[in-house]
Every structure is written in structure tokens, then in C-alpha cells.
């Protein structure tokens, strides 16, 4: 039962991100990438911060190590400052559908990093996935 609930939550996250992509496409054309990204950052911080306070409360935060906080800060800078800025710029130029498809290629880069940087094994499924994403990205770029 909990696995089924997990599947529903996963699908819910996909729908929520899809709404984000469509909304960004509509708004960033008028706001610009910089202002649009800043607005998203502020709103998302309030949204997720509120959820963190309600669900996880403050115990874990109070016991956090400096290293943990710094690593999460670095992750945020890469994911949000880098990722959301590029996402907004992409949506402005090629629309929500093409942007959403291009950004879905992140497992491709994760797989390449895992193999090259962390010496993880490359199996048939991963190799097939890399080929499919590369082919799909080509079709998106030329479609």
C-alpha cells in the first residue's frame, strides 16, 4: 500500500514539475530570466521551508553539521542558481515542451559522471538508456 502511495506521489511530482515548466514559459517571456528566477527562488524557499518545519520540525536542523549545511548550500547553488536559470532561459527560447524534454536528459549526464568519475559499471540497461536519450535529444533538437 505504501509503495502504491509512493507511486502516486511520484506521479504527483511529475505533474507539479510539468505545471512549473508551462508556467515558466508563459511568465519568463515578460519577466526576463533573472527576475523570473529570483521570484521562483523566493517562493520555493517559503514553500519548502514551511513544509520542512511542519513535517521534519527543527530537531534535525539543530543537530546539523557545518559540512552538511555547506554541501546542501553547494547543491542548491548548482541545482537552483545554475539549473533554474538555464531552465528559464531554455523555456524562453524553445518553449515548455522542448525544454522539459531536454532537461529530462539529466540521467544521461549522471550515468556518464558515474562511469567516468566514480568508476561505476556500465551495463546493458545504462548503455541502452544513454543511446535512447541521445537519439531522443537529437529528435527534439531537430523537431
Amino acid at each position: 500500500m505504501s509503495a502504491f502511495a509512493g507511486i502516486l506521489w511520484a506521479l504527483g511530482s511529475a505533474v507539479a514539475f510539468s505545471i512549473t515548466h508551462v508556467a515558466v514559459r508563459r511568465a519568463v517571456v515578460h519577466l526576463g530570466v533573472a527576475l523570473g528566477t529570483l521570484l521562483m527562488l523566493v517562493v520555493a524557499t517559503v514553500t519548502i521551508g514551511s513544509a520542512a518545519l511542519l513535517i521534519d520540525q527543527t530537531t534535525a536542523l539543530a543537530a546539523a553539521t557545518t559540512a552538511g549545511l555547506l554541501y546542501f548550500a553547494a547543491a542548491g547553488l548548482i541545482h537552483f542558481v545554475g539549473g533554474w536559470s538555464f531552465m528559464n532561459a531554455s523555456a524562453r527560447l524553445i518553449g515548455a515542451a522542448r525544454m522539459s524534454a531536454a532537461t529530462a536528459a539529466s540521467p544521461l549526464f549522471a550515468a556518464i559522471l558515474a562511469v567516468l568519475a566514480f568508476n561505476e559499471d556500465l551495463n546493458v540497461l545504462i548503455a541502452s538508456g544513454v543511446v535512447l536519450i541521445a537519439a531522443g535529444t537529437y529528435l527534439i533538437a531537430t523537431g
Partner: protein
Amino acid sequence: MSRDHRLGIVFGLLTAFCWAISPIFIRLGLLGLPSSLWGVTIGLLASTLVYGLWFAGPERQRLFSRGRDALRADQGRIARLAIPIQILAGVSAGIGVLSRTISIDLAPIVVVVPLGHSSALFTLILAPLVLGAHLERITPRLTAGVLLVVAGAALIVIGQNL
């Protein structure tokens, strides 16, 4: 293929690259702060601070002013709605992160992560409905491309979790 189209694809792939790197730091962060939600909040706070400081510079204030002036100059209905729509984008992104965090706690990663990547399929359906076919041209090549990328992402996630 126009220059804007090529640039847009490159920006999309750069987004994917950033989103592939951040989990490395997230895994390290969880060792010191075992709460994904607080971890993401810290990341967002750091990002907002950096972005805000970046905007404080005189050159960047020009960008901020340009966005604000463009909104004032453009009196169309959609332009006036741009700020509420972008707020919706931020709330929706927050809900997406929250939903994904909860799903990972409840079901195997090999199932939930590929499902999460299916957002491209939902966007393929939602975008032309909401934005109009004139803004979102859905072609057979684009549809095939999206299906291949989503399938490929699923295969990679499954292959990494065998």
C-alpha cells in the same frame, strides 16, 4: 535550426547537467543533515542570497529594472499576470520537490525516479492546451524524442539500481 533554437537546446542540456551534479552534493549533505526537506531549504536559501547579492550590483540592477519596466510597458493581460504565474511556478516547483521526497520514502527509487522524469510527457500534453498551439508546436519528431528520452532515463535509473 535557428540560433535561438540551438541555444535553447543547449540551455536545456546545461540544466540537465546541473541537475545531474547536485545529487552528489546532496548525498554528502545528508550525512550531516539527515533531512531532505531541510537540505533543500538550505540550498534554496543559499541560492536566494547569492542571487539577491548578484542583483545588488549596479549592472544587475539594470536587468531587474528592465524586467520591471517591461512589465509596466506591456499592458497586456498576460503580462500583468506574469508575476502571479511565476509565483505559481515557484509553488509548483516546491510541491514537486516535496512530492518527490515523500515518494522516495515510500517506494523503491527504481520506480519513483523514472516516474518523476515523466514530467516531460505531461508537459507535452499540457503545454499546447494551456499555452496554445501557436506557442508550443508539437511535432511527431518532438513526441518521438520525448518518448525516447523518458524511456532512456527510466532504463538508466533501473540499470543503476540493479
